[in-house]
């Protein structure tokens, strides 16, 4: 139904082998074929050792495949040098990591600006960074450092950073892995909103609950794509978030003493 849209990711027979020590050879990817088109929201799942992390590294141009072909946004990136890959990452890939990976010494704006530091103009950089932070609901926290922000807020800064260069795709590696359920719902809601706006989102996760917020699930096993299916009923994070807030509110209303105590502090 979406086949008329251009492909963002095209993998053909991609293999990757790691050599751990002298004799231990790990065949992380053993011939992966995968197409992801513009506007898709894909979850990549699989048990550890299934090759999903390696797949994410290759798709995110952090690593190159041994054999096979990878075309990212129309460019063959299979045989590029480190520096060329860096430029591709800068232009086409927005990373969101499980551990947020913000630079602790920089404030929110400076963290978000980073992709433009390595590619782009200094002119208008700050305004764009502030714009991106406002888009993820952190317009009032732009001068805070990561240590002054909650986990959910840090991850939102990371998403703002990923969005800044208007990449071909957002590549999220267990983005809710370090977050409580409410922050997770917030992050997933942002991803869904971005996807609704047409952004391609690829998310690596091992939690089925989280994967059901995507539109399509690719399951990896032993270095190949084992199953590739559409999600029959996509869960709505925005809706869940509202329910959570309502539940929390009624919980507080049922305990006026506790509320009074916390208000007195």
């Amino acid at each position, binding site marked *: 139904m979406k086949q008329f849209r251009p492909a963002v990711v095209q993998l053909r027979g991609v293999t990757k082998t790691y050599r751990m020590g002298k004799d231990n050879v790990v065949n992380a990817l053993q011939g992966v074929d995968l197409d992801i088109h513009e506007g898709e929201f894909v979850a990549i799942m699989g048990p550890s050792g299934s090759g999903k992390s390696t797949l994410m590294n290759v798709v995110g141009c952090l690593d190159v495949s041994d054999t096979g072909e990878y075309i990212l946004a129309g460019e063959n990136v299979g045989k590029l040098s480190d520096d060329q890959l860096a430029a591709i990452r800068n232009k086409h890939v927005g990373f969101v990591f499980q551990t947020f*990976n913000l*630079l602790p010494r920089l404030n929110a704006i400076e963290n978000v600006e*980073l992709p433009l530091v390595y590619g782009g103009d200094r002119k208008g950089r700050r305004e764009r960074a502030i714009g991106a932070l406002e888009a993820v609901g952190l317009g009032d926290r732009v001068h805070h450092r990561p240590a002054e922000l909650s986990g959910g807020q840090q991850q939102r800064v990371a998403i703002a950073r990923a969005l800044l260069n208007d990449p071909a795709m957002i590549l999220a590696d267990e983005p809710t892995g370090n977050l409580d359920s409410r922050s997770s719902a917030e992050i997933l809601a942002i991803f869904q909103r971005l996807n609704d706006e047409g952004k391609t989102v690829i998310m690596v996760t091992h939690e089925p609950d989280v994967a059901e917020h995507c539109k399509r699930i690719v399951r990896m096993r032993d270095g190949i794509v084992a199953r590739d299916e559409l999600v029959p009923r996509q869960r709505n994070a925005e809706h869940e978030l509202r329910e959570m807030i309502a539940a929390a509110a009624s919980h507080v209303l049922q305990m006026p003493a506790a509320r009074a105590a916390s208000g007195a502090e």
Partner: protein
Amino acid sequence: MKLYDAFRSALQSLIVNKLRSALTMLGVIIGVAAVIAMVAIGNGASQSVQTSVLALGSNLITITPGSQTQDALRGAGPPAQTLTLDDMTSLKEQLGPTIKAIEAEQQAGNWQIAANGTNWNSRVTGVTEDYPAVRDWSTQSGDFFSDSDLRVNAQVAVIGATTSQQLFGDGDAVGQTLQLRQVFGQRARIINFKVIGVLEPKGSTFGFSRDDQILVPATTAQHVLTGRTNVVSSIVIKANSSDDMDNVTADVQSVLLNRHRISNPENADFTVTNQNDTLAALQGITATFTLLLGAIGGISLLVGGIGIMNIMLVSVNERTREIGIRKAVGARRFDILTQFLIEAIALTGLGGILGILLGWGITQVVARIPQASNLLLVITVGTVAIAVGVSVAIGVVFGLYPAMRAARLHPIQALRYE
């Protein structure tokens, strides 16, 4: 990455680790300060040696009797009596206008001096009338003696400023009489001299006060004081210019060899010493001295550089994850390399500037030490430029390896680094 961002990020990381940056910089500060101060002291020594030598008069060629001279070091042995006043007269006639002035001297030894109810002990030298022209040394009061004084062995004296002060206090010495006394067992010789002039004060050279001496006509010294008639202990020529000195030296050689009927210059019974050679020899010594001091400073600079490398390696290790993040968002190898290199250069460059200030401070302190009072401490623009250049170069050299290690990190490994 733009240079602006590289600088900003470098300064930021230096500010975050204030204590560490300061301690690391201290190595460079001490190194640069050591180089600056040491070279300044060396240059100062060199300059004060030069001033001392030139204070004896400039463009001087000295002819002494007897033993051979090599590299301005006079051979041992009693001085032969081969030079005469006639030699001087003959040189004066034959060299004519190719020289500025010529004089001859005879050392008459130390004498007890009595005048004005006090007594003193001073060196007495017989000189000829052009002494002031050769030595660039005129009288502050009275006059120098003339060739007519020499012809008649006049018992007149020109005395140094210190001698005048000792004998006559603040009063005018000119016109006064002083007595030269020498005691031989039971008998004493007492000779009266009339003071006709007082020399300008000149300070001391190599520890000898030049203002405590008595000059008398050379002929008077020969006939009245020493009895060594006609013989002189040195002839001093002032050349027209420094460039002229080699020519004049050669002319003096040939005139004197001819007069003394010596065909082989190796057998010359006199020695011609060129002031340029003396200066060159002394400057060779001070240059070695300066080099040695500079090398000591250089070693501390090297140690400082190793400190920089050490701390940069620690910093790269600590910030592996940061490097991974930067690479993930698109930093190229060159971007990471410049970031860490600029950080190292900022450390050493700032250290260099502070080191120059500290070095300057050290020279100010040294200048206040009494023993070094006549040492001119010279910090030249060249020294400062070299110090800054060297400290920046040290930043590049010792920062390069850590920066290259950072640049070569693989993004995945760097991101996973705990």
